[in-house]
């Protein structure tokens, strides 16, 4: 909301600078967005009269002039074409400053001293549209009447000084979307008296009528229109508004149109109540109905766009057609024109929630709708329409007809709130006396009667003690509030199990050289295709109804595409050896939760993405084993996965606890790499942290450090390539467990060599293990272990057709 300081002065004395006023109002809740001080950037520019114009001796295009600036005569050289002797012009003297920081200094022009400069409209920072008699590329020629002002500051003479403060008004304070409201805040903030120049409006009595000049009004949707007042003005003379009104409108950012339209805008700015004016002749049947629109009903609004409405929208209609979209914009069909003779003024209160919806639907957020949507006062409508009529009279723009049509089905409720001094002080942490509270409240027109604060009609936001507390705090001063420490029960600040695990995982990854990334949860359908995400998962994706773009249309059901995008970006930028991780969520609508209004599955996922010289499947596998180890997930299975199309079918594994897949790791499928234009092998892991937390068991127990020596044996066997070492290991462990009883066990099994050559045979490999046996109660003897080794060897021969290598 832009407010000119000059206009605010009608409501409150202001004896501080514009900046100080801005700071003070900011601290009482009307935050300043911007301060515009017009005229302050023009210095040392005065009114001058051209006495003579002579040719420049050294330049054809220049002239040498003598200019009278009251107490002295200056010689000025200029190239201007539109000047003649005796013209009155603005003169920038030596040392003058112009808008945009331009400085004028006395200097010779082609050998002749020039002691200043004549200014154009543009050079003074003025808008050529406001000075229709001036030309753009010439000197500003002032009327002869300014001859009396020679030597005076042009800023004062042309009344260019204008200070405008733009306030950010919070949605609870629609009353401050008016000069009156801001004027009240100004007076209260500065400790001045609120002058209330529109007090007469509260006392005015206007007779109620059912019909004026044949006009009748009905409200058929009282749930959307709480009050509708109409007044009529006859013998209207449409014309331009007086300068003071144009100036005030302009300062507040509103363009002048004609006197009647300007009056409606002026009232809106002054009192915060949007108004509308119709030409009586455009109201067919002279019957105004405030009704819901019919489905598919059309209206062309003042901006010449046709809009289609439905029964959720409220319109002002005559007997045949809508003439305005209530609270949003008038119809072109009832516009005030040069020929308009009789005007119907409308001042109404429409339900804000509905105005907001309609305005949003038709894509028209106007000065009017943005006020209505915050909830206006029905009581203010009468003041506004009477003010409009008062202005008509003041401007001599027409003859008001006596009486008003006032349909007011739902009276505005006035809130009374208990002034509970203790509760307010407890809430604020203050010790403000009751009298102090009353004084503050009365400054802003909140009367206190019998310990109840009575919210004035324009403060519908005041409902609770907390609201009254805020008003008191605002003017007591937020900056005067103490800083205290909570006096409450001691609480324990500890991370949850999941938060601890997550932090440990982060540490392991960072210590292993991975950097964390942050990705958006959005993906596009294309991303899912590029990453070859399987169909069932794509079907689980959640669609955003109002996405920023197609790429951001879905909530990702898997984090793979997000990681692939980042790997692709880094590869594209030639970053070498990239190792990244991301802990974020996937979003899966598995059982139609979203349609049922329920929250869909959102699991916490660790995603790892890597490429570079020092990474392969087994580095990734080791990393994940470490992640599981710090998470205290101790028993899991690593199984080959061939069906996940995002991964290389021969180089992918699932990590399972029971049948539950807690992680998938592997090399990215070459087709996916191609889709992302990546020319090197990439490795991916998706680890479900939510599941890890579920399987995390802190069950570490001390085991006695062995006192007796172990027996170590090696075994090397030749097996077919397709036999997984994991299977061989399981077999050895199982067999050893079966054979060794009591304190005897296979303590360690380590694969130490895999070897292939022609002698071994095609599609075969030799795998070598070292086995460590131990008895915790005594030294083991060879005699005890030899048969065990024999049995194990036999088992491997039988099960895997293994051949013992000697």
């Amino acid at each position, binding site marked *: 909301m832009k407010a000119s300081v000059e206009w605010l002065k009608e409501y409150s004395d202001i004896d501080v600078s514009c900046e100080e006023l801005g700071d003070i109002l900011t601290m009482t809740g009307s935050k300043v967005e911007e301060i515009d001080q017009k005229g302050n950037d023009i210095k040392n520019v005065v009114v001058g009269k051209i006495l003579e114009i002579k040719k420049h001796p050294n330049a054809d295009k220049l002239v040498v002039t003598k200019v009278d600036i009251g107490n002295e005569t200056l010689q000025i050289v200029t190239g201007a074409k539109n000047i003649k002797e005796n013209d009155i012009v603005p003169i920038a003297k030596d040392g003058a400053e112009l808008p945009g920081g331009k400085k004028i200094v006395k200097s010779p022009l082609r050998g002749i001293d020039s002691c200043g400069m004549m200014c154009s409209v543009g050079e003074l920072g003025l808008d050529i549209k406001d000075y229709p008699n001036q030309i753009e590329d010439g000197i500003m020629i002032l009327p002869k009447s300014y001859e009396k002002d020679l030597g005076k500051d042009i800023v004062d003479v042309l009344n260019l000084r204008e200070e405008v403060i733009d306030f950010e008004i919070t949605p609870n304070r629609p009353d401050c979307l008016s000069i009156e409201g801001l004027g009240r805040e100004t007076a209260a903030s500065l400790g001045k008296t609120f002058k209330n120049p529109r007090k007469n409006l509260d006392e005015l009595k206007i007779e109620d009528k059912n019909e004026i000049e044949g006009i009748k009004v009905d409200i058929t949707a009282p749930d959307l229109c709480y009050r509708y007042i109409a007044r009529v003005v006859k013998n209207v003379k449409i014309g331009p508004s007086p300068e003071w009104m144009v100036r005030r409108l302009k300062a507040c950012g509103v363009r002048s149109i004609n006197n009647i339209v300007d009056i409606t805008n002026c009232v809106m700015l002054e009192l915060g109540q949007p108004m509308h004016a119709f030409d009586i002749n455009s109201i067919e049947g002279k019957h105004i109905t405030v009704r819901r629109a019919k489905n598919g009903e059309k209206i062309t609004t003042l901006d010449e766009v046709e809009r289609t409405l439905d029964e959720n929208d409220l319109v002002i209609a005559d007997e045949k057609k809508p003439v305005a979209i209530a609270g949003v914009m008038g119809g072109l069909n009832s516009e005030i024109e040069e020929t308009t003779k009789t005007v119907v003024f409308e001042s109404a209160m429409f339900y804000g929630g509905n105005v907001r919806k309609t305005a949003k639907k038709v894509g028209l957020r106007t000065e009017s709708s943005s006020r209505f949507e915050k909830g206006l006062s029905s009581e203010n409508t009468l003041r506004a329409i009477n003010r409009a009529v008062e202005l008509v009279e003041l401007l001599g723009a027409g003859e008001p007809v006596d009486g008003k049509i006032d349909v007011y089905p739902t009276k505005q409720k006035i809130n009374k709130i208990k002034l509970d001094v203790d509760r307010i002080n407890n809430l604020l942490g203050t010790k403000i006396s009751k009298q102090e509270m009353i004084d503050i409240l009365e400054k802003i027109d909140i009367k206190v009667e019998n310990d109840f604060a009575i919210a004035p009609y324009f403060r519908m936001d005041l409902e609770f003690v907390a609201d009254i507390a805020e008003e008191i705090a605002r003017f007591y001063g937020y900056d005067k509030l103490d800083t205290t420490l909570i006096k409450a029960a001691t609480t324990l600040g500890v991370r949850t199990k999941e938060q601890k695990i997550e932090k440990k995982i982060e540490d392991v990854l960072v210590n292993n*050289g991975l950097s964390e*990334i942050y990705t958006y949860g959005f993906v596009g359908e294309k991303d899912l295709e590029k990453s070859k995400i399987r169909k069932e998962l794509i079907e689980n994706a959640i669609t955003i109804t109002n996405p920023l773009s197609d790429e951001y249309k879905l909530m990702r059901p898997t984090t793979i595409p997000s990681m692939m995008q980042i790997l692709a970006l880094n590869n594209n930028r030639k*970053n070498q050896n990239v190792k990244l991780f991301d802990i974020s969520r996937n979003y899966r609508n598995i059982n139609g939760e979203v349609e049922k209004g329920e929250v869909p599955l959102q699991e916490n996922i660790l995603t790892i993405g890597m490429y570079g010289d020092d990474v392969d499947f087994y580095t990734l596998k080791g990393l994940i084993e470490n992640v599981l180890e710090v998470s205290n997930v101790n028993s899991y299975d690593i199984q080959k996965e061939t069906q996940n199309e995002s991964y290389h079918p021969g180089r992918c594994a699932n990590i399972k606890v029971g049948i539950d897949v807690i992680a998938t790791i592997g090399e990215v499928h070459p087709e996916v790499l191609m889709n992302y234009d990546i020319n090197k092998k990439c490795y991916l892991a998706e680890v479900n942290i939510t599941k890890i937390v579920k399987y995390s068991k802190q069950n570490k127990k001390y085991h006695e450090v062995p006192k007796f020596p172990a027996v170590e044996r090696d075994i090397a066997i030749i097996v077919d390539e397709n036999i997984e070492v994991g299977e061989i290991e399981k077999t050895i462990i199982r067999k050893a467990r079966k054979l060794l009883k009591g304190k005897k066990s296979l303590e360690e099994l380590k694969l130490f060599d895999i070897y292939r050559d022609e002698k071994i045979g095609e599609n075969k490999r030799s795998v070598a293990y070292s086995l460590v046996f131990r008895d915790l109660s005594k030294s083991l003897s060879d005699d005890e272990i030899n048969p065990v080794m024999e049995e194990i060897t036999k088992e491997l021969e039988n099960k895997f057709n293994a051949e013992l290598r000697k």
Partner: protein
Amino acid sequence: MEEEIAKIKENSIKEMENSKDLKSLNDIRVKYLGKKGELTLVLRGMGKLSPEKRPVIGSLVNQVRDELNNLLEEKEKELKKQELQRKLATENIDVTEPSKKIHLGSLHPITQIIEEVEDIFLGMGYEIADGPEVEKAIYNFDKLNTPPDHPARDIQDTFYITDDIVLRSQTSPVQARVMETKKPPIKIICPGAVYRSDSIDATHSPVFHQIEGLVVDKNISMTDLKGTLEMFTKKCLGENTKIRFRPHHFPFTEPSAEADVSCFVCGGKGCRVCKGEGWIELLGCGMVHPNVFKNCGIDPDEYTGFAFGFGVERIAMAKFGIEDMRLLFENDARFLKQF
């Protein structure tokens, strides 16, 4: 005979002095003290001496032998030391050559700020709470005193999945969920991603991160809120940080405030980050609105509370001197490595 012994002693000492390495030293030992060594031979030849002379000469030889042994030992130590020093000299390395460390990765700047804030509040007895990002509109809006027609729903351009399900536009729904399930005293912070329909540019992102705090108990006051935030900002942004409250409006708090902190980049003198004002708008906060309490099953006549919230990216950008928000989500490895 004595002369002969003195001679042996003299010669052997001389040779010892000239000895340059352990081998020549050993040769000297053999030459004089070995089985066929010169001094040993003297002992053997003692049979020729008179009985009264024998013990005299015997003890003299033993004395010289001990003396020589000691000298040899000392010489040996000295030579060993010299030898070690020669060896060490050959083992010299250039300590400025590159190390063999495993390069550490890094936590994203957003995580670093979040964890710093978490640690401060954990220390003050707060728990960390979490909730869904794809959230029910009722938690994102209605329970927070923002009913369907409320203008605030207009201000926050929310991503909608259905009319009832949204991408949370704030982390406040977590507060509502905690209040519904937990009895006061409640002291939580809720960090997390939030979504707003903003196009991406240097200062906007449709996804960003917030940290909100909530305290509910008997007799919680606005001065407690101010004190808590002052303590937090001093710990997080520097001991000299000042905090300033301005009245503001949020649907879920009353009274509400916006809190500015003295610029933690320039210390309040005015710089690019604070746009010359010396203050940075940092937080929104206030006393929990009675309607919010009612909606979440807490009696507003019995309990009061405060809530606050702020954006993580803004702090991260100001603290690390990052001028373009897009860098945070682009994830160029060369960017990430710097933190």
